[in-house]
């Protein structure tokens, strides 16, 4: 089991193992002809291998090196992201918000788990968790501090609570000292967390990047 599964040992009425229930449901739906098992295999492969924060990192790096692309990206995120070949489910109308020396942006979905799927993949557990969802709007600076990001008092912090049809991606600031790096080297610096807005992009890749 994982740290995210907050099972209450006092709880007496624990339903049967979800793994068994999902297996039974899958068998039922296959028997009824509603789903094709190989289609499920293909979908799992998409989520595990075809989409993820590397897509978003490519978008960010392109914006850093190409001012015209950056302009299009900030004006119409969905279309500019589509130029690099990324679109799809849970990505309807992606809006890109830019961090600057004066403004920092942070993304949350307090009601559920909205996330820009085509560019970041599926959200991590902490993003979907009650602690992050409840605190990101009322105590965003505390949340950032907990993530190791100290924000100066004079910076304007904008929290985007994506409740409906718009999905958000943060365009982080390009770190100083990266002038010599090409687009792919820049993309390697861009982390999932920086595109959610809980961290900044560091000039050097650290082990276990995300």
């Amino acid at each position, binding site marked *: 089991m994982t740290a995210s599964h907050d099972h209450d040992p006092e709880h007496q009425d624990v339903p049967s193992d979800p793994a068994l229930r*999902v297996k039974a449901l899958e068998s039922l739906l296959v028997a*009824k002809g509603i789903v094709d098992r190989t*289609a499920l295999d293909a*979908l799992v492969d998409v989520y595990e291998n075809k989409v993820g924060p590397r897509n978003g990192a490519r978008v960010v790096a392109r914006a850093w090196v190409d001012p015209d692309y950056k302009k299009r990206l900030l004006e119409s995120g969905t279309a500019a992201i589509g130029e690099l070949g990324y679109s799809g*489910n849970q990505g*309807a109308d992606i809006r890109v918000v830019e961090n600057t020396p004066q403004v920092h942006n942070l993304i949350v979905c307090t009601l559920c788990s909205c996330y820009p799927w085509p560019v970041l993949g599926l959200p991590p557990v902490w993003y979907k968790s009650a602690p992050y969802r*409840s605190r990101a709007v*009322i105590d965003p600076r505390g949340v950032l501090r907990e993530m190791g990001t100290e924000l100066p008092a*004079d910076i304007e912090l904008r929290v985007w*609570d994506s409740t409906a049809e718009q999905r958000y991606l943060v365009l982080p600031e390009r770190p100083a000292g990266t002038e010599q790096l090409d687009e792919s080297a820049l993309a390697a610096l861009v982390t999932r967390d920086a595109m959610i807005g809980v961290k900044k992009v560091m000039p050097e890749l650290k082990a276990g990047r995300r």
Partner: protein
Amino acid sequence: MNGIHDMGGMHGMGPIGYLETEPVFHEAWEGRIYSISYAVQSTVKLRLGLRPPIENIPAREYLRMSYFERWLTSIIERMVASDLVTRDEIETGRPATTSVNAPVALSPAAAVAAQFKIPATRRSVQVAARFESGQSVRARNINPVAHTRLPRYARGKSGTIERDHGVFVFLDTSAYSAGENPQHLYSVRFAARELWGDEAAPHDAVYLDLFEDYLEPA
């Protein structure tokens, strides 16, 4: 509804539990239920949206369940509401002899292709916009027992229209197959101090995407 899912601004939920890296799916069944949900809803139009059944989960259960357990609950409720499966079939795990109404399952190629299509909830119909950028508005004080995208923490609070996103399907009704009611969706900026009082940082703000029906002139 004023359920536990509407948790923006609550205290007492514990530490964030941040992990620098984690697998896409922590256990294989999570990937299966996520894929089952998308395969089913790409195959047949369901009469109920993803979120209403999740929001109907009693608070105690909601907080106990992992994220994908809630998805399991949701897809079962949606399929039952759409007459795709019966509760008896779910319990026994076997198709009833009278089982009907099964659509043709999506092929692997079609299932994957559906993932890369942008779902169309934007509507091109002409609807007059009641508000414009820069205008002061107030989020209405509504407390519907059904699904809504207006979080409790913003109700009754004043903000400024930052942008008109255009016309979208109104999820409060479309999630129940009760009509699309297409209307303007606006980005509304709320000052952190308006939402949380004078303790909040003076320049900070929360932006919410709100349907026109949620707003009134301030």
